[in-house]
């Protein structure tokens, strides 16, 4: 099962947030797994239509996902998935 790590910035909204393992073959399914573990959290990561929010990034191991709209990038058992925020603004 892929392991999902979260940016500490999300802890403000979900103090109970921990690294989790999810059953998933795609990033879209990773997001579903996140929602199953933390109801409501997926809305912090994706828009109404399921596309990744502009200032959110997801890495599989050390590579950005390519499909930010449909989240179709594939993940495998043993992958490390990182949910991070872009740094912007002042």
């Amino acid at each position, binding site marked *: 099962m892929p392991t999902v790590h979260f940016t500490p910035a999300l802890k403000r909204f979900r103090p109970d947030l921990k690294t989790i393992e999810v059953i998933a073959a795609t990033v879209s399914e990773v997001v579903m797994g996140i929602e199953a573990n933390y109801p409501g959290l997926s*809305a*912090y*990561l994706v828009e*109404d239509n399921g596309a990744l*929010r*502009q*200032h959110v990034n997801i890495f599989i191991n050390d590579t950005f996902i390519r499909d930010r709209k449909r989240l179709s990038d594939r993940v495998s058992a043993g992958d490390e998935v990182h949910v991070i*925020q*872009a740094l912007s603004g002042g």
Partner: protein
Amino acid sequence: MSAKTLLLGTRKGLVVYRKKKSGWRFDRDHFLGIPVSIAASDPRSGTWWAMQDNGHWGVKLQRSQNEGKTWIEVTAPKYPEGEEVKAGAPATLKYIWAFSTGGADQDGRIYIGTDPGGLFVSDDNGDTFELNRGLWDVPERKEQWFGGGRGDPGIHSIIVDPEDDRHIYVGISCAGVYETKDGGKSWQHRNKGLSSYFMPNPTADVGHDPHRVVMCPGDPAKMWQQNHVSIYRTVNGGASWKDVSQKKGPAKFGFAVAVDEDDGNTAWVIPGIKDEYRVAVDHALCVCRTEDGGKTWKKLTKGLPQQASYDLVYRHALDIDGDTLAFGTTTGNLYMSDNRGNKWQCLNNNLPMVYSCEFV
């Protein structure tokens, strides 16, 4: 009973002021660092609401049933899959720009106005929302609504007639005013009399830019709008609007407007220099009041800075409670008057940019 609490939606959170024996005092803030587009209260239940524009993480909706001691994040409205703002442009929630409770006997009914133009309705105090199809499906929406200050059309004003909760108006930038008399099943544009120089046909039915629309609660046929172009007033529930701005004088461009709770002839606006400037007129902050339906305006400046002022007051950042008015500005100033604007007191010079101001 006069208000004892003032809620401010600001760029850095929700700020609460409380009325003490010694006067209005800063109480505390909530959601420090997170922009709150609107902070509001529900007079029926005492519920407080904070609409958050939570940067990277999207639009959020917070509810408190104990005056901010604890908050619960409720699921923000979602556009149904496949809905479009324009052909090929998916509709997703970008910003919450309006909040209203339903009628006094509609327990749990609330309305949310959004960018990109959807009106959402909840009948369970925000646990679930549904897109109002009647307004979303008006045939001209995709072709004739467009973005004003924001990229896409947005609903910034929602007014429920206190005498008939099926009778509702919304103000949309840019589209204009719409009215329903059947609780939202069907909507009609109500823009007769408006003239918008920025449109190919300035008097077209749709495409106008009301910045803020308000109704006199004690005389609901009388409504006011601070429009991008002028100040307009209707005495017939929006069937026709009349330009009542000053030909010579500051009362013309601005965002906020307030109307007296009983007297539909008395209203306040806070002028700015139009379009590309958007600062106080002549670097001097003033409030203008009319007591004769806009025939004449009185410039009120006592207690307000008359030099080096860059203040602008956004559309939701002026509120009235009896004879008391309060407004917050883009430069973080908070002013209050307890005598209908004749004299103002500055409560704070150091707030974040103020987006909304509401008496509780």
